[in-house]
Each structure stands twice: as structure tokens, then as C-alpha cells.
């Protein structure tokens, strides 16, 4: 009886792990898509509204979903009161801090941090060009992430269940 419960627990645990992996494969393209939306909105705010960066990021944070909203919110807050750091620094530190909470990986992180080093330091035309560049890079990563999702999402779920079963068989 105890053996049976143990076996069920092993299978349950490995299944959960499999589902967790599958979820992060599904989350990644979705979150990248959100970043692309954010970049688009930023382009509108900067291009048409000439909205100051802290204010624009604050607006963005209210339109984002978890966990990205907190990232934008903190960047906005820090820019509002920071007296001793440039946008580049604040941006990098904030992204570093919150990236762990997302399902996204390093290629899109690099692209996003790169964007931060150009924000707010040039005229409008130039800003729009950088935002466009970041968008293209993110779209590229999104396509890659979708491909991975198709390939690995189901696979990780199945592997989770089967892996559990294998361990049970081996030690039963």
C-alpha cells in the first residue's frame, strides 16, 4: 500500500514538472508578444505624444499583464526619482531584476536591454528607428519561441508522465 502511494507520488511529481516545463514553452512566445506590444505603444507615445519617458512607462505598466507590469512600473518609478543614473543603467538593472520571473530567455533579454540604452537620448525620428529595430528583433525571437513551443510543449508533458512511470518501474 505504502509502495503504491509512493509510486503515485513519484508519477504525480514528474507529471507536474512536465506540465510546468510545457507551460513555460507556451508562456514565452506570449510574453514576447507582450513586449512587442509594449514597444509599439512606446513608439506611439514617443512619436505622437512626445510623452516623457517615465510617464510613458507608467502608462505602459497599467496596460501590461503580470509579471511584466511590475517591471515597467519599477522602471517608471525609478526614472521619476533617480538623480544619479541614466536610463541605460536603470533599464538594465530593472530588467535584470524581473527577468527571472518571466518565461523569457536571454536572446530577447539582450534585445530588450539594448533598446534601453537608446531610449530617451536622441530625437524622435531616431527613437522611432531604434524602437522599430527592437521590434524586429523581438518578432524574430517570437517566431523562434513559437517553433519551440510546437516542438516541445506536448513533448514535455508526455515526458513528464512517462519519466515518472519509468522511475516507478525501475524501483518497484
Amino acid at each position, binding site marked *: 500500500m505504502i509502495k503504491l502511494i509512493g509510486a503515485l507520488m513519484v508519477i504525480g511529481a514528474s507529471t507536474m514538472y512536465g506540465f510546468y516545463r510545457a507551460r513555460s514553452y507556451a508562456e514565452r512566445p506570449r510574453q514576447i508578444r507582450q513586449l512587442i506590444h509594449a514597444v509599439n505603444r512606446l513608439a506611439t507615445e*514617443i512619436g505622437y505624444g*512626445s*510623452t*516623457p*519617458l*517615465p510617464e*510613458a512607462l507608467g502608462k505602459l505598466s497599467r496596460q501590461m499583464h503580470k509579471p511584466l507590469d511590475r517591471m515597467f512600473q519599477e522602471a517608471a518609478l525609478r*526614472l521619476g526619482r533617480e*538623480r*544619479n*543614473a*541614466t*536610463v541605460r543603467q536603470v533599464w538594465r538593472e530593472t530588467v535584470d531584476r524581473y527577468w527571472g520571473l518571466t518565461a523569457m530567455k536571454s536572446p530577447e533579454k539582450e534585445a530588450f536591454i539594448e533598446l534601453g540604452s537608446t*531610449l*530617451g*537620448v*536622441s*530625437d*524622435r525620428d*531616431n*527613437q522611432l528607428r531604434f524602437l522599430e529595430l527592437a521590434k524586429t528583433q523581438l518578432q524574430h525571437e517570437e517566431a523562434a519561441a513559437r517553433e519551440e513551443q510546437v516542438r516541445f510543449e506536448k513533448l514535455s508533458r508526455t515526458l513528464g508522465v512517462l519519466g515518472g512511470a519509468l522511475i516507478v518501474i525501475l524501483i518497484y
Partner: protein
Amino acid sequence: MPAAIDHLLPDRLSRIVSLLDRSTLDMLEELRIRENRPLEVIFGGKYSFLSAAGGLTLSAEQAYKPDRDDCLKLLDLITNHSLYSFEEELRRGYITVRGGHRVGIAGRAVLDRGQVKLLRDISGFNIRLAREVRGAAEGIIRTLIDPAEGMIHHTLVVSPPQCGKTTLIRDIARILSEGAWGAGRQPGRGVKVGIVDERSEIAASVAGVPTFDVGSRTDVLDACPKAEGMMMMIRSLSPQVIIVDEIGRKQDAEAIQEAMHAGIRVVATAHGRDIADVQRRPDLAPLFAASVFSRYVVLSGTGRSRRQQVYDGELRLIRLAADKAVAGR
């Protein structure tokens, strides 16, 4: 006074400036920051460099030299981390910040069809401190009022830079708006004043609301080109007095005449050492040909020694004021 510009400066510069002694800070007029060159202050008409320990020095070697990092951070702070929202200001070469201070900037000009489109590679800053000196016009206001009509004369304020033109007309606006000339404040005597504040220096508006006291019956058109602004005022805001800063172009002269024909009193300022200086400017000549102004105020001296001279329409000296209320800062 350091608090006035403290929010503009990155920590390192702010600390150096805050180490200055009180009397210097009280007289501070300009703070000049140039990349890799000595940090400079101008106070009471004199200049000096600042050392890293916060002392005044005249030797360029001992002076603190702001580096690229300082300048980038400063620019970031002045533009609220958003250079792109200051394109118009970059084209004109200065940014007006909270508190009415004007930051002049130097860099490399980017041209578009022969016109300056904006400045980039910005490496020089001149922070000019704005000060609200309530009562700056009290010494002369009586001579500017036309007793028959209980209204101010058409007045032109002539002065070289830094002698307090803007401070003076800001105070004139307040006094007129409150009706506080002659024997103290009399309720019901205030007039409607319109200020066309092209450089945001007179009222130092932040998000459209004046931060300096320009009087309760005063309307401010912020960041509006003068000639256009005066016409807008005449059409829609029905002011009794229009106040404009630094006239100089042909359109300004035309708009002023337009306003006068509409029965509005005009108070304007112009750059110049004396009245003859201004008369020589071709674009302003029509104003003198028609001798439209009936009062001229000539300002001179900076720091603690300031003088206000008032002339009438025939250029006869009416009053010379050099009292403490004017100079006392």
C-alpha cells in the same frame, strides 16, 4: 538657494555646488558646465571656477572638470530622461525647467535644409537661475501709471542681459493684476493682464500653470510665439494690458501696434544698452517712428548695484531708482 536648482543636478555636481558658502549661493546667477573644462559659477557679476572640494578658485588646473558621465546625467535630468520631448527647445538652444530657470545648451547643430533642426552631442550647459523678486517694480511703478486713466503707459524696458528685465515685468504684471500701485492695494482696481511667455521665463509655467506670482487677474500664453500670441490674446482673452519679453522681430513690432490700436496697453522689453541702441534696430524702427511708447525704463548694473531709469516719451529722465528694494536680493 541651492534647493532651487538641486533637482536639476546629478549628485556629484550638486554636492560641489552645495559646499559653496551662503553668500555666494545667494548671489548665484549662472552655473556653467562644460565637458572636460572647469566648472564655473557666476555670482554678483563676477566669475569663478569651482574645485572638487567646493571652494572658489580662479585657476583652471585646480578646478573640478565635469566628465562625460556628469554631462550625460545632467542632460538626462534636465530633459526628464526624454530628449525627444524637447525637440523644439533643442532647436532654439535652451530648455526652461521647473522653477523658471533657463538652461542654455551648446552642442553640434544638425541642419535640415539650411535650418537648425536640433542640437546633438550636447556638451555645454548654462543654468541661469531665475529669481522671483517681489517688489522689483515697486520703486518705479508710480511713474509708469497714467493718472488720468488709472492705467499703465505703453512701456518699453531696455536692458542688457542679466539686469533683471524679466524680473521687472513679472512684478509689473503682478502689481497691475492686483491693482497694487499708488497708495497700497485697492480692491477693484486690478486690471486684466495677458502675458505672452514665449520662453516660459516670465511666469515659469509648469504644465500650463504659472509657478511665479504674476497676479490673480493674469492670463499666460505659455511657450507661444510672441506675435501670434499677442493676436490670440487680442481676439480671445480681452486683456487690458499685454506683457511680452524680448521683442526684436518685425512681426513683434507689427503685433504691438495692432494691440495698441485695439486699445490695449503694452509693456515690452528689448535687449540693448540704452534707448538709442534699440532705436537703431531696423525691425523695431516703426515703433519709434510712430513714437508709440510713452515710458522707457532703462536697467543697468548687475548683482548688488542695479539702477532703474525711467524716461518719458520725449526721452526726458523722470526718475532714477537705485534703492535697496531693487538691488537687494
